[in-house]
Protein backbone atom coordinates (compact mmCIF):
# COMPACT_ATOMS: atom_id res chain seq x y z
CA UNK A 1 0.00 0.00 0.00
CA UNK A 2 2.26 2.75 1.23
CA UNK A 3 4.80 2.23 -1.55
CA UNK A 4 2.14 2.92 -4.12
CA UNK A 5 0.69 5.57 -1.86
CA UNK A 6 4.02 7.26 -1.38
CA UNK A 7 4.75 7.24 -5.07
CA UNK A 8 1.38 8.66 -6.02
CA UNK A 9 1.71 11.38 -3.44
CA UNK A 10 5.26 12.28 -4.34
CA UNK A 11 4.01 13.34 -7.72
CA UNK A 12 2.10 16.18 -6.16
CA UNK A 13 3.79 17.06 -2.93
CA UNK A 14 5.53 14.94 -0.38
CA UNK A 15 3.41 14.69 2.71
CA UNK A 16 3.30 12.81 5.99
CA UNK A 17 5.82 10.01 6.23
CA UNK A 18 7.38 10.75 2.84
CA UNK A 19 8.09 14.31 3.90
CA UNK A 20 9.51 13.13 7.20
CA UNK A 21 11.86 10.72 5.42
CA UNK A 22 12.89 13.42 3.00
CA UNK A 23 13.75 15.86 5.76
CA UNK A 24 15.63 13.16 7.66
CA UNK A 25 17.60 12.38 4.51
CA UNK A 26 18.40 16.06 3.99
CA UNK A 27 19.53 16.28 7.62
CA UNK A 28 21.85 13.33 7.01
CA UNK A 29 23.34 14.94 3.91
CA UNK A 30 23.81 18.25 5.71
CA UNK A 31 25.60 16.46 8.54
CA UNK A 32 27.93 14.73 6.09
CA UNK A 33 28.59 18.05 4.39
CA UNK A 34 29.28 19.84 7.66
CA UNK A 35 31.65 17.14 8.94
CA UNK A 36 33.61 17.03 5.68
CA UNK A 37 34.41 20.71 6.21
CA UNK A 38 35.38 20.36 9.86
CA UNK A 39 37.57 17.27 9.40
CA UNK A 40 39.06 16.46 5.99
CA UNK A 41 39.53 12.78 6.83
CA UNK A 42 35.79 12.40 7.34
CA UNK A 43 34.95 12.04 3.67
CA UNK A 44 37.42 9.24 2.93
CA UNK A 45 36.61 5.73 1.78
CA UNK A 46 38.09 4.27 4.93
CA UNK A 47 36.09 6.47 7.22
CA UNK A 48 32.97 5.78 5.20
CA UNK A 49 33.50 2.10 5.83
CA UNK A 50 34.04 2.74 9.53
CA UNK A 51 30.71 4.53 9.71
CA UNK A 52 29.07 1.66 7.83
CA UNK A 53 30.49 -0.84 10.29
CA UNK A 54 29.49 1.20 13.31
CA UNK A 55 26.01 1.76 11.96
CA UNK A 56 25.46 -1.90 11.06
CA UNK A 57 24.88 -2.90 14.69
CA UNK A 58 22.50 -0.04 15.51
CA UNK A 59 20.81 -0.52 12.13
CA UNK A 60 20.12 -4.21 12.75
CA UNK A 61 18.67 -3.41 16.16
CA UNK A 62 16.60 -0.58 14.68
CA UNK A 63 14.93 -2.91 12.14
CA UNK A 64 13.44 -5.04 14.90
CA UNK A 65 12.79 -2.03 17.11
CA UNK A 66 10.82 -0.36 14.33
CA UNK A 67 8.53 -3.36 13.95
CA UNK A 68 7.93 -3.45 17.69
CA UNK A 69 7.33 0.30 17.85
CA UNK A 70 4.81 0.08 14.98
CA UNK A 71 2.79 -2.43 17.04
CA UNK A 72 2.64 0.27 19.70
CA UNK A 73 5.24 -1.40 21.92
CA UNK A 74 8.89 -0.95 22.82
CA UNK A 75 11.80 -3.33 23.31
CA UNK A 76 14.26 -2.22 25.99
CA UNK A 77 15.96 -5.61 26.12
CA UNK A 78 17.85 -5.60 22.79
CA UNK A 79 21.19 -4.39 24.21
CA UNK A 80 21.25 -7.15 26.82
CA UNK A 81 19.91 -9.78 24.44
CA UNK A 82 22.73 -8.88 22.07
CA UNK A 83 25.23 -9.67 24.83
CA UNK A 84 23.50 -12.89 25.88
CA UNK A 85 23.41 -14.14 22.29
CA UNK A 86 27.13 -13.49 22.01
CA UNK A 87 27.79 -15.36 25.25
CA UNK A 88 25.74 -18.34 24.07
CA UNK A 89 27.73 -18.44 20.83
CA UNK A 90 31.05 -18.06 22.66
CA UNK A 91 30.29 -20.86 25.09
CA UNK A 92 29.15 -23.15 22.28
CA UNK A 93 32.36 -22.53 20.35
CA UNK A 94 34.36 -23.23 23.49
CA UNK A 95 32.36 -26.44 23.86
CA UNK A 96 33.59 -27.50 20.45
CA UNK A 97 30.80 -26.45 18.11
CA UNK A 98 31.92 -24.98 14.75
CA UNK A 99 31.49 -21.22 14.34
CA UNK A 100 28.57 -21.14 11.91
CA UNK A 101 26.12 -23.35 13.86
CA UNK A 102 27.23 -21.67 17.09
CA UNK A 103 26.39 -18.27 15.61
CA UNK A 104 23.07 -19.58 14.30
CA UNK A 105 22.22 -20.81 17.79
CA UNK A 106 23.24 -17.43 19.19
CA UNK A 107 20.68 -15.78 16.91
CA UNK A 108 18.13 -18.38 17.97
CA UNK A 109 18.86 -17.55 21.62
CA UNK A 110 18.07 -13.92 20.82
CA UNK A 111 14.85 -15.00 19.13
CA UNK A 112 13.91 -17.04 22.20
CA UNK A 113 14.40 -13.99 24.44
CA UNK A 114 12.15 -12.00 22.10
CA UNK A 115 9.59 -14.80 22.08
CA UNK A 116 9.53 -14.76 25.88
CA UNK A 117 9.03 -10.98 25.74
CA UNK A 118 6.06 -11.54 23.43
CA UNK A 119 4.56 -14.17 25.71
CA UNK A 120 4.94 -12.04 28.83
CA UNK A 121 3.35 -9.07 27.06
CA UNK A 122 0.41 -10.92 25.50
CA UNK A 123 -0.32 -13.76 27.91
CA UNK A 124 0.60 -12.17 31.22
CA UNK A 125 -0.61 -8.78 29.98
CA UNK A 126 2.46 -6.93 31.27
CA UNK A 127 3.09 -3.64 29.45
CA UNK A 128 5.92 -3.82 26.88
CA UNK A 129 7.96 -1.26 28.80
CA UNK A 130 7.96 -3.31 32.01
CA UNK A 131 8.22 -6.72 30.32
CA UNK A 132 11.26 -5.78 28.24
CA UNK A 133 12.81 -3.84 31.13
CA UNK A 134 12.65 -7.10 33.06
CA UNK A 135 14.17 -9.02 30.15
CA UNK A 136 16.89 -6.37 29.88
CA UNK A 137 18.00 -7.18 33.42
CA UNK A 138 17.46 -10.93 33.15
CA UNK A 139 19.39 -11.34 29.88
CA UNK A 140 22.27 -9.19 31.15
CA UNK A 141 22.33 -11.09 34.42
CA UNK A 142 22.41 -14.46 32.65
CA UNK A 143 25.18 -13.27 30.32
CA UNK A 144 27.30 -12.09 33.26
CA UNK A 145 26.54 -15.16 35.35
CA UNK A 146 27.46 -17.61 32.58
CA UNK A 147 30.81 -15.92 31.98
CA UNK A 148 31.63 -14.71 35.45
CA UNK A 149 31.67 -11.25 33.84
CA UNK A 150 34.90 -12.17 32.04
CA UNK A 151 35.31 -11.86 28.27
CA UNK A 152 35.64 -15.01 26.18
CA UNK A 153 38.56 -14.78 23.80
CA UNK A 154 40.66 -17.02 21.54
CA UNK A 155 37.66 -18.07 19.52
CA UNK A 156 39.61 -18.65 16.32
CA UNK A 157 39.99 -16.72 13.14
CA UNK A 158 36.70 -17.81 11.54
CA UNK A 159 34.81 -16.19 14.38
CA UNK A 160 36.17 -12.82 13.30
CA UNK A 161 35.19 -13.25 9.65
CA UNK A 162 31.63 -11.90 9.88
CA UNK A 163 32.67 -8.65 11.53
CA UNK A 164 35.95 -8.04 9.74
CA UNK A 165 35.65 -9.61 6.30
CA UNK A 166 34.51 -7.88 3.16
CA UNK A 167 33.49 -8.47 -0.44
CA UNK A 168 35.58 -7.24 -3.40
CA UNK A 169 38.64 -6.48 -1.33
CA UNK A 170 41.57 -5.70 -3.62
CA UNK A 171 45.08 -6.05 -2.21
CA UNK A 172 48.25 -5.70 -4.23
CA UNK A 173 51.69 -6.95 -3.29
CA UNK A 174 54.20 -4.16 -3.45
CA UNK A 175 57.80 -4.44 -4.54
CA UNK A 176 58.97 -4.05 -0.95
CA UNK A 177 57.02 -7.13 0.04
CA UNK A 178 54.27 -5.33 1.98
CA UNK A 179 50.65 -5.64 0.83
CA UNK A 180 48.90 -2.47 -0.25
CA UNK A 181 45.12 -2.18 0.05
CA UNK A 182 43.79 -0.73 -3.20
CA UNK A 183 40.09 -1.09 -2.35
CA UNK A 184 39.13 -2.08 1.19
CA UNK A 185 35.99 -3.85 -0.02
CA UNK A 186 32.39 -3.80 1.16
CA UNK A 187 32.27 -5.11 4.72
CA UNK A 188 30.07 -8.12 5.44
CA UNK A 189 28.17 -6.25 8.19
CA UNK A 190 27.12 -3.56 5.71
CA UNK A 191 25.86 -6.18 3.27
CA UNK A 192 24.09 -8.00 6.08
CA UNK A 193 22.40 -4.77 7.17
CA UNK A 194 21.25 -4.06 3.62
CA UNK A 195 19.85 -7.57 3.21
CA UNK A 196 18.02 -7.49 6.54
CA UNK A 197 16.67 -3.99 5.92
CA UNK A 198 15.29 -4.97 2.50
CA UNK A 199 13.81 -8.13 3.99
CA UNK A 200 12.28 -6.17 6.87
CA UNK A 201 10.79 -3.55 4.56
CA UNK A 202 9.40 -6.29 2.33
CA UNK A 203 7.75 -8.04 5.27
CA UNK A 204 6.29 -4.78 6.56
CA UNK A 205 5.01 -3.45 3.27
CA UNK A 206 4.22 -6.44 1.10
CA UNK A 207 3.23 -9.26 3.46
CA UNK A 208 0.19 -9.89 5.59
CA UNK A 209 2.22 -9.93 8.81
CA UNK A 210 3.37 -6.38 8.09
CA UNK A 211 -0.16 -5.19 7.46
CA UNK A 212 -1.22 -6.80 10.73
CA UNK A 213 1.68 -5.17 12.60
CA UNK A 214 0.46 -1.76 11.42
CA UNK A 215 -3.16 -2.55 12.24
CA UNK A 216 -2.35 -3.72 15.78
CA UNK A 217 -0.45 -0.52 16.49
CA UNK A 218 -3.08 1.63 14.85
CA UNK A 219 -6.12 0.26 16.68
CA UNK A 220 -5.67 -2.98 18.54
CA UNK A 221 -9.37 -3.48 19.20
CA UNK A 222 -10.27 -2.86 15.55
CA UNK A 223 -7.59 -5.33 14.49
CA UNK A 224 -9.00 -7.95 16.85
CA UNK A 225 -12.57 -7.38 15.65
CA UNK A 226 -11.36 -7.64 12.05
CA UNK A 227 -10.00 -11.10 12.73
CA UNK A 228 -6.32 -10.20 13.11
CA UNK A 229 -4.56 -12.53 15.52
CA UNK A 230 -3.23 -9.77 17.76
CA UNK A 231 -1.34 -12.10 20.09
CA UNK A 232 0.45 -13.90 17.28
CA UNK A 233 1.32 -10.60 15.57
CA UNK A 234 2.88 -9.13 18.70
CA UNK A 235 4.82 -12.28 19.53
CA UNK A 236 6.11 -12.29 15.96
CA UNK A 237 7.35 -8.71 16.24
CA UNK A 238 9.15 -9.24 19.56
CA UNK A 239 10.69 -12.49 18.34
CA UNK A 240 11.99 -10.74 15.23
CA UNK A 241 13.43 -7.98 17.39
CA UNK A 242 15.16 -10.51 19.65
CA UNK A 243 16.58 -12.48 16.73
CA UNK A 244 17.89 -9.28 15.11
CA UNK A 245 19.48 -8.33 18.42
CA UNK A 246 21.16 -11.75 18.35
CA UNK A 247 22.38 -11.09 14.81
CA UNK A 248 23.67 -7.66 15.83
CA UNK A 249 25.49 -9.40 18.70
CA UNK A 250 27.21 -11.74 16.25
CA UNK A 251 28.40 -8.81 14.14
CA UNK A 252 29.66 -6.82 17.12
CA UNK A 253 31.43 -9.67 18.93
CA UNK A 254 32.86 -10.98 15.70
CA UNK A 255 34.36 -7.59 14.98
CA UNK A 256 36.01 -7.60 18.40
CA UNK A 257 36.87 -11.33 17.96
CA UNK A 258 35.96 -11.53 21.65
CA UNK A 259 32.73 -12.12 23.52
CA UNK A 260 32.13 -9.24 25.90
CA UNK A 261 29.23 -9.89 28.29
CA UNK A 262 29.25 -6.17 29.06
CA UNK A 263 28.71 -5.13 25.45
CA UNK A 264 25.62 -3.38 24.17
CA UNK A 265 24.69 -1.37 27.25
CA UNK A 266 22.26 1.41 26.23
CA UNK A 267 22.18 0.23 22.62
CA UNK A 268 18.40 -0.07 22.90
CA UNK A 269 18.28 3.68 23.32
CA UNK A 270 20.23 4.25 20.10
CA UNK A 271 17.90 1.86 18.28
CA UNK A 272 14.82 3.63 19.64
CA UNK A 273 16.34 6.99 18.73
CA UNK A 274 17.06 5.77 15.18
CA UNK A 275 13.44 4.61 14.75
CA UNK A 276 12.02 7.80 16.15
CA UNK A 277 14.30 10.06 14.10
CA UNK A 278 13.19 8.00 11.10
CA UNK A 279 9.55 8.85 11.75
CA UNK A 280 8.27 5.94 13.85
CA UNK A 281 5.65 6.94 16.41
CA UNK A 282 5.77 5.47 19.89
CA UNK A 283 1.96 5.63 19.83
CA UNK A 284 2.08 2.88 17.21
CA UNK A 285 0.81 2.51 13.66
CA UNK A 286 3.52 4.65 12.08
CA UNK A 287 7.07 3.87 11.01
CA UNK A 288 9.23 2.49 8.24
CA UNK A 289 12.45 0.56 7.87
CA UNK A 290 13.87 3.03 5.36
CA UNK A 291 13.23 5.90 7.77
CA UNK A 292 14.85 4.01 10.62
CA UNK A 293 17.90 3.25 8.49
CA UNK A 294 18.28 6.96 7.79
CA UNK A 295 17.88 7.53 11.52
CA UNK A 296 20.57 4.93 12.29
CA UNK A 297 22.95 6.62 9.86
CA UNK A 298 22.23 10.04 11.33
CA UNK A 299 23.28 8.70 14.72
CA UNK A 300 26.26 6.84 13.23
CA UNK A 301 27.47 9.88 11.28
CA UNK A 302 26.96 12.18 14.25
CA UNK A 303 28.99 9.90 16.54
CA UNK A 304 31.75 9.43 13.99
CA UNK A 305 31.92 13.04 12.87
CA UNK A 306 31.93 14.37 16.42
CA UNK A 307 34.66 11.87 17.30
CA UNK A 308 36.80 12.99 14.41
CA UNK A 309 36.23 16.61 15.35
CA UNK A 310 37.50 15.70 18.81
CA UNK A 311 34.21 16.25 20.65
CA UNK A 312 34.02 14.45 23.97
CA UNK A 313 31.69 11.49 24.46
CA UNK A 314 29.70 13.51 26.97
CA UNK A 315 29.02 16.31 24.52
CA UNK A 316 28.04 13.66 21.93
CA UNK A 317 25.34 12.33 24.25
CA UNK A 318 24.00 15.83 24.71
CA UNK A 319 23.88 16.50 20.99
CA UNK A 320 22.19 13.21 20.12
CA UNK A 321 19.63 13.80 22.86
CA UNK A 322 18.82 17.19 21.41
CA UNK A 323 18.54 15.69 17.90
CA UNK A 324 16.02 13.07 19.06
CA UNK A 325 13.79 15.63 20.75
CA UNK A 326 14.16 18.01 17.82
CA UNK A 327 13.21 15.37 15.24
CA UNK A 328 10.05 14.42 17.10
CA UNK A 329 9.14 18.03 17.81
CA UNK A 330 9.45 19.04 14.17
CA UNK A 331 7.35 16.05 13.15
CA UNK A 332 4.61 16.96 15.60
CA UNK A 333 4.60 20.58 14.45
CA UNK A 334 4.10 19.41 10.90
CA UNK A 335 1.32 17.00 11.82
CA UNK A 336 -0.54 19.72 13.67
CA UNK A 337 -0.62 21.92 10.59
Amino acid sequence: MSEVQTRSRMRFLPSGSALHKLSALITLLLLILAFSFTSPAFLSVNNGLTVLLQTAVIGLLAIGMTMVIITGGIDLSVGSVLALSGVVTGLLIKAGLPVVPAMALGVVAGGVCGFVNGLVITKMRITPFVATLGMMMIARGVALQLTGAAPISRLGETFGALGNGSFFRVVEMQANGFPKVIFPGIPYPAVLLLVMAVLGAYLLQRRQIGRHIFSVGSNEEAARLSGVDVVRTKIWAYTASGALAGLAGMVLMSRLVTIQPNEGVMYELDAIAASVIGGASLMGGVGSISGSMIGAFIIGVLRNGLNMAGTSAFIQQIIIGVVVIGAVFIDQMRNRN
Partner: protein
Amino acid sequence: MLNTATEKTPLVEMSHIHKRFGGLHAVEDVSVSLNAGEVVGVLGHNGAGKSCLMRILSGAMKPNEGKILINGQEAVIDTPQDARLNGIETIYQTLALANHLDAAANLFLGRELKTRFGNLDDARMFSEAENALRQLNPNFKNLRDAVSNLSGGQRQVIAIARAIYFQAKVLIMDEPTAALGPSETAMVADLTLRLKAEGIGIFLISHDMHDVFELCDRVMVMNKGRNVGTFAIKDVNKDDVLSLIIKGALPDDWTPRGQA
Protein backbone atom coordinates in the same frame (compact mmCIF):
# COMPACT_ATOMS: atom_id res chain seq x y z
CA MET B 1 -46.87 -14.68 8.10
CA LEU B 2 -45.34 -14.54 11.55
CA ASN B 3 -46.52 -18.08 12.19
CA THR B 4 -44.83 -19.62 9.19
CA ALA B 5 -41.66 -17.82 10.15
CA THR B 6 -41.61 -19.20 13.66
CA GLU B 7 -42.16 -22.75 12.48
CA LYS B 8 -38.99 -22.72 10.43
CA THR B 9 -35.71 -23.10 12.26
CA PRO B 10 -34.47 -19.57 12.87
CA LEU B 11 -31.17 -18.50 11.35
CA VAL B 12 -29.95 -17.26 14.71
CA GLU B 13 -31.31 -17.99 18.11
CA MET B 14 -29.77 -16.36 21.16
CA SER B 15 -31.18 -17.80 24.34
CA HIS B 16 -30.93 -16.69 27.95
CA ILE B 17 -27.89 -14.52 27.42
CA HIS B 18 -26.34 -12.91 30.50
CA LYS B 19 -23.48 -10.44 30.57
CA ARG B 20 -22.22 -8.92 33.80
CA PHE B 21 -19.53 -6.33 34.44
CA GLY B 22 -18.82 -6.61 38.13
CA GLY B 23 -22.14 -5.77 39.73
CA LEU B 24 -23.60 -4.30 36.54
CA HIS B 25 -25.98 -6.53 34.63
CA ALA B 26 -25.46 -5.24 31.07
CA VAL B 27 -27.51 -8.07 29.52
CA GLU B 28 -29.89 -10.05 31.69
CA ASP B 29 -31.55 -13.22 30.46
CA VAL B 30 -32.21 -11.99 26.93
CA SER B 31 -33.51 -14.32 24.25
CA VAL B 32 -34.02 -13.26 20.67
CA SER B 33 -34.22 -14.96 17.28
CA LEU B 34 -33.66 -13.94 13.70
CA ASN B 35 -34.97 -15.56 10.53
CA ALA B 36 -33.53 -15.52 7.05
CA GLY B 37 -34.77 -12.51 5.10
CA GLU B 38 -35.90 -10.73 8.23
CA VAL B 39 -34.89 -7.43 9.81
CA VAL B 40 -35.16 -7.38 13.57
CA GLY B 41 -34.82 -4.02 15.26
CA VAL B 42 -32.97 -4.02 18.58
CA LEU B 43 -34.12 -0.95 20.48
CA GLY B 44 -33.53 0.58 23.87
CA HIS B 45 -32.27 3.61 25.75
CA ASN B 46 -28.57 4.46 25.90
CA GLY B 47 -26.79 1.83 27.93
CA ALA B 48 -29.68 -0.63 27.66
CA GLY B 49 -27.27 -3.38 26.58
CA LYS B 50 -27.96 -3.47 22.83
CA SER B 51 -24.36 -3.28 21.75
CA CYS B 52 -23.28 -5.81 24.36
CA LEU B 53 -25.88 -8.29 23.15
CA MET B 54 -24.79 -7.86 19.55
CA ARG B 55 -21.09 -7.97 20.41
CA ILE B 56 -21.72 -11.34 22.00
CA LEU B 57 -23.12 -12.57 18.70
CA SER B 58 -20.14 -11.11 16.81
CA GLY B 59 -17.64 -12.91 19.02
CA ALA B 60 -16.27 -9.62 20.30
CA MET B 61 -17.45 -10.32 23.85
CA LYS B 62 -18.07 -13.52 25.77
CA PRO B 63 -21.37 -13.97 27.61
CA ASN B 64 -21.41 -15.16 31.22
CA GLU B 65 -24.32 -17.44 30.46
CA GLY B 66 -26.52 -18.40 27.58
CA LYS B 67 -26.18 -20.13 24.26
CA ILE B 68 -26.35 -19.30 20.59
CA LEU B 69 -27.88 -21.52 17.93
CA ILE B 70 -27.10 -21.02 14.26
CA ASN B 71 -29.53 -22.88 11.99
CA GLY B 72 -30.65 -24.86 15.03
CA GLN B 73 -27.13 -26.03 15.86
CA GLU B 74 -25.40 -24.80 18.98
CA ALA B 75 -22.48 -22.64 17.88
CA VAL B 76 -19.33 -21.71 19.76
CA ILE B 77 -18.59 -18.05 19.03
CA ASP B 78 -15.55 -17.17 21.09
CA THR B 79 -13.76 -14.89 18.64
CA PRO B 80 -14.68 -12.58 15.76
CA GLN B 81 -13.21 -15.23 13.44
CA ASP B 82 -15.72 -17.79 14.75
CA ALA B 83 -18.56 -15.41 13.99
CA ARG B 84 -17.31 -14.87 10.45
CA LEU B 85 -17.01 -18.60 9.88
CA ASN B 86 -20.69 -18.77 10.82
CA GLY B 87 -21.48 -16.10 8.24
CA ILE B 88 -21.98 -13.30 10.76
CA GLU B 89 -20.70 -9.86 9.79
CA THR B 90 -20.88 -6.78 11.98
CA ILE B 91 -20.92 -3.04 11.54
CA TYR B 92 -19.69 -1.97 14.96
CA GLN B 93 -20.96 1.16 16.63
CA THR B 94 -17.31 2.16 17.07
CA LEU B 95 -16.69 1.28 13.39
CA ALA B 96 -13.54 -0.69 14.32
CA LEU B 97 -11.25 0.89 11.75
CA ALA B 98 -7.45 1.07 11.90
CA ASN B 99 -6.86 4.80 11.55
CA HIS B 100 -3.44 4.69 9.92
CA LEU B 101 -4.49 2.33 7.12
CA ASP B 102 -6.39 3.34 4.00
CA ALA B 103 -9.88 2.26 3.00
CA ALA B 104 -8.83 -0.84 1.08
CA ALA B 105 -6.49 -2.06 3.82
CA ASN B 106 -9.31 -1.66 6.34
CA LEU B 107 -11.89 -3.35 4.16
CA PHE B 108 -9.69 -6.42 3.77
CA LEU B 109 -8.07 -6.34 7.21
CA GLY B 110 -7.73 -9.89 8.47
CA ARG B 111 -8.79 -11.25 5.07
CA GLU B 112 -6.17 -9.74 2.78
CA LEU B 113 -6.12 -10.73 -0.86
CA LYS B 114 -2.80 -12.20 -1.87
CA THR B 115 -0.93 -12.89 -5.05
CA ARG B 116 0.32 -16.32 -6.05
CA PHE B 117 3.49 -15.73 -4.06
CA GLY B 118 1.63 -14.76 -0.94
CA ASN B 119 2.37 -11.05 -1.28
CA LEU B 120 -0.39 -8.57 -0.56
CA ASP B 121 -2.35 -7.93 -3.74
CA ASP B 122 -2.83 -4.23 -3.14
CA ALA B 123 -3.91 -3.49 -6.70
CA ARG B 124 -6.78 -5.95 -6.54
CA MET B 125 -7.78 -4.95 -3.02
CA PHE B 126 -7.83 -1.33 -4.14
CA SER B 127 -10.06 -1.93 -7.16
CA GLU B 128 -12.42 -4.19 -5.19
CA ALA B 129 -12.64 -1.62 -2.42
CA GLU B 130 -13.22 1.14 -4.94
CA ASN B 131 -16.18 -0.80 -6.42
CA ALA B 132 -17.65 -1.65 -3.06
CA LEU B 133 -17.40 1.91 -1.78
CA ARG B 134 -18.69 3.55 -4.95
CA GLN B 135 -21.80 1.40 -4.71
CA LEU B 136 -22.59 2.99 -1.38
CA ASN B 137 -21.33 6.46 -2.15
CA PRO B 138 -20.67 7.34 -5.81
CA ASN B 139 -18.53 10.35 -4.86
CA PHE B 140 -16.22 8.46 -2.57
CA LYS B 141 -12.80 10.06 -3.00
CA ASN B 142 -9.55 9.92 -1.04
CA LEU B 143 -9.44 6.16 -1.26
CA ARG B 144 -5.71 6.21 -0.64
CA ASP B 145 -5.86 8.41 2.44
CA ALA B 146 -5.43 7.01 5.90
CA VAL B 147 -8.98 6.66 7.24
CA SER B 148 -8.16 9.04 10.10
CA ASN B 149 -8.25 11.78 7.47
CA LEU B 150 -11.76 10.88 6.31
CA SER B 151 -15.07 12.28 7.48
CA GLY B 152 -17.28 10.41 9.92
CA GLY B 153 -19.69 9.52 7.13
CA GLN B 154 -16.94 8.20 4.87
CA ARG B 155 -15.59 6.10 7.71
CA GLN B 156 -19.02 4.66 8.32
CA VAL B 157 -19.36 3.82 4.63
CA ILE B 158 -16.11 1.84 4.85
CA ALA B 159 -17.42 -0.09 7.84
CA ILE B 160 -20.66 -0.86 5.99
CA ALA B 161 -18.83 -1.89 2.81
CA ARG B 162 -16.62 -4.22 4.81
CA ALA B 163 -19.61 -5.97 6.37
CA ILE B 164 -21.47 -6.54 3.12
CA TYR B 165 -18.50 -7.31 0.86
CA PHE B 166 -17.97 -10.79 2.26
CA GLN B 167 -21.53 -12.01 1.65
CA ALA B 168 -22.77 -12.53 5.16
CA LYS B 169 -25.79 -14.65 6.08
CA VAL B 170 -26.34 -12.63 9.23
CA LEU B 171 -25.65 -8.92 9.37
CA ILE B 172 -25.44 -6.91 12.57
CA MET B 173 -25.79 -3.18 12.08
CA ASP B 174 -25.10 -1.20 15.24
CA GLU B 175 -26.34 2.33 14.50
CA PRO B 176 -25.07 2.17 10.92
CA THR B 177 -26.34 5.58 9.91
CA ALA B 178 -25.40 7.59 12.99
CA ALA B 179 -22.86 9.67 11.05
CA LEU B 180 -24.53 9.68 7.64
CA GLY B 181 -26.25 12.46 5.77
CA PRO B 182 -29.83 12.08 4.47
CA SER B 183 -28.96 10.70 1.04
CA GLU B 184 -26.45 8.18 2.42
CA THR B 185 -28.98 7.17 5.06
CA ALA B 186 -31.54 6.53 2.34
CA MET B 187 -28.95 4.51 0.47
CA VAL B 188 -28.33 2.34 3.53
CA ALA B 189 -32.09 1.86 3.91
CA ASP B 190 -32.28 0.67 0.30
CA LEU B 191 -29.33 -1.56 0.87
CA THR B 192 -30.94 -3.07 3.96
CA LEU B 193 -34.08 -3.93 2.00
CA ARG B 194 -32.04 -5.36 -0.87
CA LEU B 195 -30.01 -7.61 1.46
CA LYS B 196 -33.21 -8.69 3.19
CA ALA B 197 -34.68 -9.63 -0.19
CA GLU B 198 -31.58 -11.73 -0.81
CA GLY B 199 -32.46 -13.73 2.30
CA ILE B 200 -29.97 -12.23 4.71
CA GLY B 201 -31.04 -11.88 8.32
CA ILE B 202 -30.34 -8.48 9.81
CA PHE B 203 -30.18 -7.17 13.36
CA LEU B 204 -30.57 -3.41 13.22
CA ILE B 205 -29.82 -1.21 16.19
CA SER B 206 -31.22 2.26 15.67
CA HIS B 207 -32.59 5.17 17.63
CA ASP B 208 -34.40 6.48 14.56
CA MET B 209 -38.09 5.50 14.80
CA HIS B 210 -38.68 6.35 11.17
CA ASP B 211 -36.00 3.89 10.01
CA VAL B 212 -37.18 1.26 12.44
CA PHE B 213 -40.77 1.35 11.19
CA GLU B 214 -39.71 1.47 7.56
CA LEU B 215 -37.20 -1.39 7.69
CA CYS B 216 -37.96 -3.80 10.51
CA ASP B 217 -40.23 -6.84 10.48
CA ARG B 218 -40.00 -7.24 14.22
CA VAL B 219 -38.64 -5.20 17.08
CA MET B 220 -37.06 -6.34 20.32
CA VAL B 221 -36.90 -3.71 23.03
CA MET B 222 -34.33 -3.75 25.82
CA ASN B 223 -34.57 -1.83 29.03
CA LYS B 224 -31.79 -1.93 31.66
CA GLY B 225 -30.38 -5.11 30.15
CA ARG B 226 -33.68 -7.01 29.96
CA ASN B 227 -35.78 -7.93 26.98
CA VAL B 228 -39.07 -6.14 27.68
CA GLY B 229 -40.88 -7.28 24.59
CA THR B 230 -40.59 -8.64 21.06
CA PHE B 231 -43.32 -7.63 18.63
CA ALA B 232 -44.19 -7.86 14.98
CA ILE B 233 -43.86 -4.30 13.73
CA LYS B 234 -47.54 -4.16 12.71
CA ASP B 235 -48.62 -4.84 16.30
CA VAL B 236 -47.02 -1.71 17.72
CA ASN B 237 -46.92 1.99 16.93
CA LYS B 238 -44.32 4.59 17.77
CA ASP B 239 -45.88 5.47 21.11
CA ASP B 240 -45.91 1.82 22.17
CA VAL B 241 -42.24 1.43 21.28
CA LEU B 242 -41.27 4.66 23.03
CA SER B 243 -43.14 3.58 26.12
CA LEU B 244 -41.26 0.25 26.08
CA ILE B 245 -37.95 1.99 25.66
CA ILE B 246 -38.52 4.57 28.37
CA LYS B 247 -40.73 2.80 30.94
CA GLY B 248 -39.92 -0.80 30.01
CA ALA B 249 -43.67 -1.50 29.65
CA LEU B 250 -46.44 -1.04 27.10
CA PRO B 251 -49.11 1.60 27.59
CA ASP B 252 -51.91 0.25 29.84
CA ASP B 253 -54.51 0.25 27.11
CA TRP B 254 -52.40 -1.70 24.59
CA THR B 255 -53.86 -4.42 22.36
CA PRO B 256 -52.06 -5.83 19.30
CA ARG B 257 -52.53 -3.06 16.77
CA GLY B 258 -52.43 -5.44 13.81
CA GLN B 259 -55.70 -7.02 14.89
CA ALA B 260 -57.54 -3.79 15.50
